């Protein structure tokens, strides 16, 4: 029997999938906003992350060519927000994206990746059975006034984060796999 002390608690995370339909994006946006609001009282930071993830989803809907659900994962780790948006579509030639180049303002498309790269501290694109956009936003833990724990950080409980040993382990493995390449 494995004791609880040998398993580190799963970091607060949000994982869900969304059908590649524009009508579903609003609900996805609100779920992400609610999750972030538990940890971050700074609306600017929350808006940045919500927009970045939404842009990645919009790209998946528009360009992946797949009708499979888009997978979304957000993890809070060490004060940073790490997110991944993955589709199962035709992929994307990541080398064609130049984050330093401002998209021509009068084009009515083509801004999604640029916005993500500007809103976040890190962005990574990888293609393997679809496109995965990984992003990192640093310093997102912003406690609400008066809500500081003895350790100096705020860690409110996230619904679904602690569901027993085997599920915790499953989450940890999935998260580790997903973010191994970020380090």
């Amino acid at each position, binding site marked *: 029997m494995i004791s609880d002390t040998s398993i580190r608690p799963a970091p607060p995370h949000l994982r869900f999938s969304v059908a590649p339909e*524009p009508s579903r*994006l*609003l609900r996805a*946006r609100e779920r992400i906003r609610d999750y972030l609001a538990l940890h971050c009282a700074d609306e*600017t930071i929350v*808006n940045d992350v*919500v*927009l970045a993830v*939404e*842009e990645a989803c*919009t790209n998946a809907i528009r360009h992946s060519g797949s009708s499979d659900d888009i997978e979304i994962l957000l993890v809070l780790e060490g004060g940073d927000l790490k997110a991944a948006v993955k589709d199962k579509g035709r992929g994307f030639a990541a080398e064609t994206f130049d984050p330093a180049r*401002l*998209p021509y*303002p*009068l*084009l*009515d*498309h083509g*801004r*999604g990746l*640029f*916005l993500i790269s*500007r*809103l976040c501290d890190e962005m990574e694109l990888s293609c393997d059975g679809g496109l995965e956009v990984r992003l990192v936003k640093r310093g997102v833990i912003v406690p609400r006034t008066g809500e500081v724990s003895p350790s100096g950080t705020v860690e409110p409980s996230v619904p679904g984060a602690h569901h027993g040993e085997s599920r915790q382990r499953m989450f940890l493995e999935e998260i580790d796999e997903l973010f191994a390449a970020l380090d």
Partner: protein
Amino acid sequence: MRSRLRRQRRHLYTAPRLKEALDEAIQSDVNHLVIDLSDTSFIDSTALGVLIAESRRLEPERGLLAIAGPNEQVRKVLQMTGLDHVFALYATREEALADSVAS
């Protein structure tokens, strides 16, 4: 020269609806369009695309699309994409209208 005013819904994710509203607003003789975003809390690149596409339907030389009342998030997105130089930004619709009447 005629100015039309559109009040936008709170979430600009419904790009087709935004496009419809702008299509309706931009009749053949409209030069200046003021879009009141004071009730809009959040925009994304889809909404930007619609604004740009619609602004191109205005008269090429004299057409102007002004945005009134952008909040911090809207303003930030416009600035990041350089669109704060394409659209005229005003704090209120009154200021936007006053400017467009004067020009």
